[in-house]
């Protein structure tokens, strides 16, 4: 950021101006992510190892539950769940944390100016970093479960970017709403639980392929993909890493991925517009 003679004028500015400023403050986003990660592991003995250990421990739980107590017809069900629940956790933790990021940093917002979007964005990014840290462990587990990574795993960066854009959009809208209506956080805690079950994480969406919904005339599977981008994303992770009940990993359908990406971009655009429009009032509302 230059301290030139360009006047900083308050008042409503365009989305482009806001984005430009955000880019000028990219170090702030980086430092906030760093802060989140540092603070998370400060005071814990194992530190960053927890990021690696938690998917491992989660898998042990799934393996016990679905292997012995509630056996599932899906082969290697623990892996089936794990490849879906890791991206879901990134999403749900980022949403519930990110939507509170403005209100929780009231002290900062009241005393210093900086692009407010840095707070929710850094929240989403630090959860993404956490997710990425767990990936190597996931690959080891896949390998040990007889699913060595295939070339199709190269789709992962694309899927991750799409999820990042979608999550950012959702968080920006909800963080704004939470400033004006503090109930947003409580409501989202419940909605996220419902969302979890409406997303094919612990079940196979293919089972609903032949269930035709009344009135709409499309299958339940299709309907879920249309209304729930997380369902599309989770299915994409599963396709490239686990495959399906019938076969080994493959490529996600291109038109399918493209539609999800387009949805994510639209959600992000709406999120940015809503957030930038309201962010000037955060200083007096939090």
């Amino acid at each position, binding site marked *: 950021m230059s*301290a*030139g003679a360009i006047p900083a*004028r*308050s008042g409503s500015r365009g989305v482009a101006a806001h984005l430009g400023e955000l880019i000028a403050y990219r170090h702030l986003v980086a*430092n906030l992510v760093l*802060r989140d990660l540092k603070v998370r592991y400060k005071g814990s003995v194992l530190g960053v190892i927890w990021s690696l250990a938690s998917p491992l421990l989660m898998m042990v739980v799934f393996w016990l539950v679905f292997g012995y107590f509630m056996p599932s017809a899906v082969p290697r069900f623990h892996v089936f769940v794990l490849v879906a629940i890791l991206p879901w956790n990134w999403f749900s933790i980022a949403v519930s944390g990110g939507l509170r990021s403005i209100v929780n940093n009231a002290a*900062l917002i009241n005393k210093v100016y900086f692009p407010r979007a840095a707070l929710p964005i850094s929240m989403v990014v630090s959860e993404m970093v956490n997710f990425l840290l767990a990936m190597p462990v996931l690959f080891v587990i896949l390998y040990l479960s007889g699913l060595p990574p295939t070339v199709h795993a190269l789709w992962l960066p694309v899927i991750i970017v799409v999820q990042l854009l979608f999550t950012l959009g959702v968080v920006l809208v909800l963080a704004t709403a939470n400033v004006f*209506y*503090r109930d947003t956080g409580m409501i989202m805690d419940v909605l996220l639980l419902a969302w979890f079950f409406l997303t094919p994480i612990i079940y196979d969406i293919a089972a609903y392929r032949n269930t035709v919904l009344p009135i709409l005339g499309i299958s339940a599977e299709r309907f879920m993909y249309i209304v729930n981008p997380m369902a599309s994303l989770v299915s994409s992770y599963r396709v490239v890493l686990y495959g399906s009940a019938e076969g080994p990993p493959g490529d996600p359908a291109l038109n399918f991925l493209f539609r999800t990406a387009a949805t994510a971009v639209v959600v992000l655009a709406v999120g940015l517009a809503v957030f930038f429009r309201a962010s000037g009032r955060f200083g007096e509302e939090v």
Partner: protein
Amino acid sequence: MPEAVRLEHVTKRFTLDRGRPRAFKDAFVSLRGGRARRTETLLALDDVSLSLERGGTMGLVGPNGTGKSTVLKLVARILEPTSGRVTVFGRVAALLELGAGFHPDLTGRENIMLNGSIMGFGRSEMRRRLDAIVDFSELERFIDMPVKHYSSGMYMRLGFAAAVNMDADTLLIDEVLAVGDQSFQNKCRDKILALRRAGATILLVSHDPGAVRDLCRSAVWLENGRALAAGPVDEVLEAYYASVMAREEARFAAQHAAAETAPERTEDRWGSGEVEIVGVDLLGPDGAPRFVVGAAGPLTVRVRYLAHRRVDDPVFGLAIHRDDGLHVNGPNTLDGGLEIPFVEGPGAVHYRVQALPLLAGAYELSASCYDRTCTHPYDHHHRRFPFRVHAGGVRERLGLVHVAARWAHEPGPTATACPDRTAGPAAVGQLAGDTGPAGPDQEPSVAP
């Protein structure tokens, strides 16, 4: 001179909490046809325009809750104006709350880096500043310790050091000069003065008139969201004090009235009652009663009495206490050489001060009437009449009294004789300051 900060017809209206439904519950209530509740708003700033040139120093003065901090927050872009326009040229450092962005679990060093990025600096730019910040904060030994282990003084020092070493073009300072111990306070003050010399623009909010006068060349007096006066600092402060004094007059008047109508015998009033003190007035130079008087100004205390029977050789006394109980003086008519043969019926005694030597502060007056031996009280009001002394033109602030004196400077080797008033005006300065009516050699206007 190019501008650094400009406010054009800025209005800021806050919607108070109750105004808008904060919870969905309220939204539902209003949806179902519940009466739309009236939005309560607070007009924090009402059409305020001001302009501060680059390198200028401006103080914002005014009572609490009149929009001073709102101006700072608008300039800092924490708030946006409801209408009007705020334009700021260059980088702004807001010293609104020191260490606002610090995270308790991070070390001092990590917090400095984070704080720098909050202000828009990159890592390499911050590394260059790191040493200067650590040096200034005097926290070398603790810099790699989480700030939650810092004392509050250390925390503030780090916050000040981090905020002030950012090469800001404009500094916004909100009553934060009281940081750490005395030596660090002086260091902060020196740093701000150094930045000012280096051409920084300063916008200061302070209740300490001394700080405003020392740091600022111009001032704006805000009251109820409006700029009542703007201009050179001395003029604005004078106008502001005139209004403060008027306000305090009203408050003290109520207290005096209460004291005069209070029950006759209480723990702060005693005596046998043959002579009753019915009222005590402080008279200003114009002879009108007042409760707020200017330091180094003329003052007359009038003690009104009513003698219910003839009393021979009474002694009237006064005492001044500072509000913390310090006994300042206790003159009486006997020591003062005024003989009063007798009193009967109503009357008054006057105690005339040519130049009140008290410094600004709150004081209390006692008044009494005793017999000639000063042992038997007829009536004694103990510290029942509060009054306030205002700095007026006196710049002295430390201690209790303002001694009328002159300073002189004699350059060259050992002094042989004290320079006296015959020396030129360049060598002699009056302690009372150039604007104050003071000094024993100046004839004050005496109250009738």
